[in-house]
């Protein structure tokens, strides 16, 4: 499109008191020959903004450069048809006059460079052309348990079609044909029969016109991207499945639930040494069986060893949970379920004594009512302490020693039955070291769930999750399953965004996401449904999802120039790129989150967005005026700043009127991971004296919303040495600092320190070339 650039310089907010506006106007006019170039004393006021609108309408201005306040301010005023008009904001207020001395030559030069960079960017950037294709809006739900059924029925209630795949021959998941649960609404005081609610939910799913159900079926593979996932379903015909078939869906919910922790690992708590030592799940199954048989609650629980009514039971909490040798996490549900089962025992065996051996009782929120209710029962004894020994004597009774009790010392208990509150393991795919798609694993899981639970309980390392399979079986370059966050749970890493999945359009829900009970799983499924709908609707409009929701740009790869180095396909944080046998990348734009990490990775610089490219940023760097004389005040430092955290931090520094060196020239980047190494060479070979990267914290508690962007930047910087050596430059000229959005106070010092480093090294020898 023909560039018709309009430059609008605001002289308000003391910009004209600090800067020579006439000089700025002349730069736009003389250096860039723009169509329109004016200044106004109150650009965001009605008169000012009408001026811009009429230029767009009358003079056909299609590149609007607003040199005023931060791009984060007054967006509602400087807001034009995004598909026709490219708008660039030049931050003369927060990043220039508010942090620099007024009427100073260096401040003026800072403003002039920002204007040059802004106009250069506007000339090169184009409005987005959204990729709009025919898409499918139905939702695949994997797993027909509580989370899956809630997901399916809730999606249907919002008007979306659902494909529900369940590996068992019946719906209902773990609670199917089980006895009781705690009530699902406040006051959370009593137990209720599971069957009523669950049967209703199953009926609702089975009777829905919008839900297509495949039982005895597993996912063989999923290929494609949001709005166009092709799902191969493998139905076990022997068990009533439909054989092999395919469905097209728009998005996916993984509601595959949990498996009990392998009790074979609990031999240290006596499991296996007596039939009277059982797990919480085994006790639940025992009650369920007796209830189903008797159809009433008048039965009594007998000791498995001698079939006599149980008179005393010890519940041992955290059996294999909160334990670095087993499950390092808290399974969240075991406190409540043990209190529930304690109530069962007291109901069916009224003369029994129940001991609950615990470290902390975790009945959060209004579940506290449930705990209080159980404490009122004088047959239930809460024993806080650490179990140090458990053994079975000749008579068959179980001796338990508990240390560090509330009475100061140890106590010994002698009980007829012990229940181990074993934890839960996410059913998020099995670990296959050889990377094979092992469909048989799904089948084994039915026959021998315990075996797989154990294999899954090993926390998989970063490299290991790409070898997991058995649930989604994605045909993706970067592995078959959702990446684990921790302990095998494919949860979001972000406090503020619980559904920020690393595979666009695929959302975990319920206890596969994090340990949670039935009440929270049902609600979690609703949230996951919303996210699938959101992804589908945004994809239909050619828009990206979180965290750049609404962004209509997407990367373009100039394939004929590709060298098949595979760096983009390996480094994409969201697995958006696949590749063919030769290693040529294939972009799936609807999986893309628009971070630009691929653009940063590409050594031949062939990946670009309409408004963000290697050339655009490189040209901005070249647009800066670099004085030939290498004095301290002429030092030029390019700052690449993460748009989401570091750029706003600089804005706040401005609002607080902190003083920051005028040697810096800030270029906002989508993510530090989008920085292409050629920019360093571009900058340094032009006489830029130093480059400072400001971006998110990385490592264990990383804050980068593009996962590894800031870490990749630091990794790639290490590879810069060659470039620096070639240019005979010191490695200290390039530095990365991890900065949080609230670290604005630290900015003056961070910048000052770097400027001083550069001063010590001296100016770049490339000035004037």
């Amino acid at each position, binding site marked *: 499109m023909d560039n018709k650039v309009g430059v609008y310089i605001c002289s308000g907010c003391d910009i004209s008191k600090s800067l020579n506006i006439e000089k700025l106007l002349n730069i736009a006019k003389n250096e860039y020959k723009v169509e329109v170039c004016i200044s106004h004393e109150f650009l965001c006021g009605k008169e000012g903004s009408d001026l811009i609108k009429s230029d767009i309408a009358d003079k056909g201005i299609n590149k609007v450069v607003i040199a005023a306040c931060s791009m984060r301010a007054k967006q509602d005023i400087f807001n034009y048809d995004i598909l026709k008009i490219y708008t660039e904001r030049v931050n003369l207020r927060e990043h220039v006059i508010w942090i620099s001395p007024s009427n100073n030559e260096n401040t003026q030069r800072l403003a002039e460079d920002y204007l040059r960079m802004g106009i250069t960017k506007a000339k090169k950037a184009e409005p987005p052309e959204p990729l709009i294709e025919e898409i499918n809006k139905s939702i695949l739900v994997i797993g027909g348990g509580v989370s899956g059924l809630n997901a399916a029925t809730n999606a249907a209630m919002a008007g979306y079609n659902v494909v529900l795949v369940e590996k068992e021959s019946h719906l209902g998941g773990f609670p199917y044909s089980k006895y009781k649960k705690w009530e699902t609404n406040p006051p959370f005081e009593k137990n209720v029969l599971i069957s009523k609610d669950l049967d209703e939910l199953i009926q609702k799913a089975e009777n829905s016109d919008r839900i297509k159900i495949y039982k005895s079926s597993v996912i063989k593979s999923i290929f494609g991207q949001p709005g166009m996932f092709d799902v191969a379903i493998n139905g076990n015909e022997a068990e009533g499945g439909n054989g092999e078939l395919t469905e097209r869906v728009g998005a996916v919910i993984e509601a595959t639930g949990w498996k009990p922790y392998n009790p074979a690992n609990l031999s240290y708590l006596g499991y296996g040494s007596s039939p009277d030592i059982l797990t919480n799940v085994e006790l639940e199954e025992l009650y369920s069986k007796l209830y189903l048989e008797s159809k009433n609650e008048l039965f009594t629980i007998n000791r498995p060893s001698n079939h006599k009514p149980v008179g005393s039971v010890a519940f041992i909490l955290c059996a294999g949970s909160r334990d670095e040798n087993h499950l390092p996490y808290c399974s969240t549900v075991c406190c409540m379920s043990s209190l529930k089962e304690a109530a069962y025992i007291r109901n069916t065996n009224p003369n029994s004594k129940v001991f609950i051996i615990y470290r902390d009782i975790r009945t959060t929120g209004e579940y506290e009512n449930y705990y209080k209710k159980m404490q009122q029962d004088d047959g239930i004894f809460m024993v806080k302490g650490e179990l140090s020994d458990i053994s079975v004597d000749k008579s068959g009774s179980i001796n338990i020693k508990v240390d560090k009790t509330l009475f100061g010392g140890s106590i010994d208990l002698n009980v007829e039955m012990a229940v181990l509150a074993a934890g839960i393991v996410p059913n998020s795919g099995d670990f296959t070291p050889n990377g094979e798609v092992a469909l048989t694993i799904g089948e084994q899981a039915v026959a021998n769930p315990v075996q797989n639970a154990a294999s899954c309980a090993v926390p998989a390392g970063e490299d290991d999750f790409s070898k997991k399979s058995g649930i989604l079986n994605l045909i993706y370059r970067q592995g078959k399953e959702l990446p684990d966050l921790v302990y095998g749970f494919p949860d979001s890493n972000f406090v503020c965004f619980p559904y920020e999945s690393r595979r666009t359009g695929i959302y975990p829900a319920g206890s596969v996401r994090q340990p949670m009970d039935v009440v929270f799983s049902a609600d979690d499924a609703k949230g996951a449904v919303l996210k699938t709908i959101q992804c589908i609707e945004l994809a239909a409009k050619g828009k990206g999802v979180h965290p750049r929701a609404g962004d209509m740009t997407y990367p373009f790869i100039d394939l004929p120039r590709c060298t098949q180095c595979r760096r983009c396909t390996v480094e994409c944080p969201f697995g958006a790129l696949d590749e063919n046998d030769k290693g040529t990348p294939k972009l799936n734009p609807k999986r893309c989150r628009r971070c630009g990490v691929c653009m940063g990775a590409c050594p031949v610089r062939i990946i670009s967005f309409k408004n963000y490219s290697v050339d655009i940023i490189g040209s901005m760097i070249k647009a800066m005026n670099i004085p030939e004389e290498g004095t301290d005040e002429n030092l030029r430092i390019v700052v690449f700043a993460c748009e989401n955290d570091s750029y706003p931090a600089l804005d706040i520094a401005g609002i607080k009127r902190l003083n920051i060196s005028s040697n810096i020239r800030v270029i906002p980047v989508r993510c530090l991971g989008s920085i292409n190494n050629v920019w360093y060479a571009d900058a340094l070979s032009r006489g830029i004296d130093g480059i400072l990267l400001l971006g998110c914290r990385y490592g264990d508690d990383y804050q980068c919303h593009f996962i590894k962007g800031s870490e990749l930047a630091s990794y790639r910087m290490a590879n810069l040495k060659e470039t620096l050596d070639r240019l005979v430059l010191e490695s200290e000229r390039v530095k990365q600092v991890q900065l949080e*959005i609230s670290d604005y106070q630290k900015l003056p010092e961070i910048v000052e320190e770097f400027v001083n480093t550069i001063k010590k090294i001296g100016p770049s020898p490339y000035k004037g070339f």
Partner: protein
Amino acid sequence: MDGSNEKKPVLIIGGGFSGVSAAIEIMESSEKSVVIVEKNPYIGGRVLQMYKYFPKLCPPFCGFEINLRRIKLNEYGRIRFITSSEIEDIRKEDGSYKVKVRRKPQYINDNCTICGDCVDACPETRLNDFNYDMDSQKAIYLPNFFAYPAKYVIDDEACKLISCKKCMTVCRYDAINLEAKEEFYNLDVESVILATGWRPYDANNLTKLGFGRYKNVITNVMMERLSADSGPTGGEIIRPSDNKTVNRIAFVQCAGSRDENHLPYCSSICCMASLKQALYVREKNPDSEASIFYIDLRTPGKYEKFLNRASSDEKIKLIKGKVANITEESSSGDLILEVEDMLSSKKVKFKAEMVVLATGMVPNAPSNLKTGSLKLSFDENGFLFFQDGNEGIFSAGVAKNPMDVNQSIQSATAGALSVLQYSFNKRGQNG
């Protein structure tokens, strides 16, 4: 279906993190419009007053900034904010909700550029409620650095209004009208999400724990401001009585929670919050020692890792014991805690330089919300876990149940789906 195909907006009561999240989720998933009624002059709610979030010790503004971008980058106008406002009345009529909103006088209009000239001119001061009154600010003020809408606010209890006019004289953008009056809005909305959040339990009720009597007994929410760079001390953890750096700090868990005389429920977040605070106290002052007195340590799920992180620091002491009484040593300003150490079953005395009471969360609704003739099914603690009867009313965040930020946003996302379902069921179409 009741025949009306007119597109009516969704009302979200409360523009805290839950309400804002729900609004954005709705906007990005459908064609619906949202009106947020917020009592503060800015959106973001209680969490903006937090220094760091657990378990990542990251600043709340990072996620908030993303949400502001989502609001700004997407189609304008589909989320409307009515700040400084409260609900006067809600009625159900003809299948929709008729809502009356009362808005405080808007002395500053959208012309405001936050240039700050007015602040320099203002002669009056007010207590800074964002910092829990621990310091003061001008009567014309920016509520916080990330304030959205980004404009100054006038506290008309501190401002002399037209008898002063100094701010008006210096404002170059005609942004101030000191004669502004209260305004009323009438809304007609399809459905409602209650995202009214929480307030800290009033520590003045905890007489034995010394709050209000001893300067160096503070609450956990005050601790967040005392640690924040934008707080009253610029982020230095110094105690109120003598500005001394705190080396020995004690945290009292369940201060007024799990207690029939105060809040009978567990507020869910206080264990994690105190562990977090202990960690950042230790980070800011490596010589310090933090002791946490608790009944049960409740760090469910993967939060266990956070507990391990804190407990592996040998200068963070976790002591199972209930604090029965706190007194002050008047000479030093130090505090003496009487603790029933449950593990030794002895009463012990513990000396600390500052005490943080881990007070719980009280739901703002129902006591602070006028709902007219509408009967909402609040439970006995004032939470709206689910709404019985009145269709089209949903809840999110702490209005629903005690929960942390992560779970609040989960519930806001689920609440957004409820709105779409209701709309679909009512009109047979989405949007």
